[in-house]
């Protein structure tokens, strides 16, 4: 089972790191959509819905300009976009009280930056069914 992932982060470097980490964590990744803030993330979800394309996982930075991670979650919920799709929030500020608000707003996982590939693997494994994982995938982020 191939999966489509939406990665929302204002840092293009971090988006590429996360995509690489997902591929190397054993996920059978069909497509990774990139969005630079929560507003672009909402647009990506609406476009996917209009094309009847399913998103299987959303990784969302908390701290972004235009629309931050918490407001993205709240607006996604209000518009009923991608209901039931697991969302993992990512933050460099683990002490930010908004991380708890994000969990209350539906985030199912949290990852603190800096992170290891093992952390990504563990988080993805807990949220996606085993069939979404490529059988022979191994490796590390920078191998």
């Amino acid at each position, binding site marked *: 089972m191939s999966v489509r992932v939406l990665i929302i982060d204002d840092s293009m470097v971090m988006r590429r790191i996360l995509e690489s980490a997902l591929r190397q964590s054993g996920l059978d990744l069909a497509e990774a959509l990139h969005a630079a803030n929560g507003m672009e993330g909402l647009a990506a979800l609406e476009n996917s819905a209009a094309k009847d394309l399913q998103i299987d996982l959303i990784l969302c930075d908390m701290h972004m300009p235009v629309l931050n991670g918490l407001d993205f979650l709240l607006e996604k919920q209000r518009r009923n976009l991608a209901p039931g799709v697991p969302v993992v929030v990512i933050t*460099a500020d683990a002490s930010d009280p908004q991380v708890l608000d994000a969990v209350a707003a539906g985030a199912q996982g949290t990852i603190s930056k800096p992170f290891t590939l093992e952390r990504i693997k563990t988080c993805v494994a807990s949220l996606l069914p085993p069939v979404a994982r490529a059988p022979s995938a191994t490796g590390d982020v*920078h191998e």
Partner: protein
Amino acid sequence: MKARDCTQDQRIWQIDDIVADVFQMMLRQSCEVLGDAAASGIGISAMVLLSGPIEAQCLVEFPHATAKKLASALLGSEDAAEDAMIEDAVGELCNMIAGGWKSTLGATASASDLSVPAISRSRAPDRIPLNGCSLRMRRTYAFDNSPFTVSLAIREPLGNRSSARSTK
């Protein structure tokens, strides 16, 4: 040694640990402390501000060649030559150091907000009044023989000054 000196030393060691953790986890590289003198030939800097009950600034400064090496190492490839990508890598590094530092500052700091990184093609000007700061420090580090500098300044309530937590 006076108690306050000891606390400041501990805070400096915490920063060393935070920087080392970022490089170990994200780049799988070690990062050594070179000292307090600034790296020369700064080409790109990034600053993150902490505002609220505690005010602080975190500034990282990179020679251009070191910044390019950082971007390549973060992306695991040599195709990070675009200036925008290099600036983005420096900003993200600053973001992770500032976030890690904030988490060591105790409960008062959790109510303060981190800004998004501001990138500059020269040394960024100080954004908080440095007189009255409870901590000002500058450390130069090197990864893969390439130097960069981290500078921190913080203004905080008196009661918070001894509450820095251990990161290890």
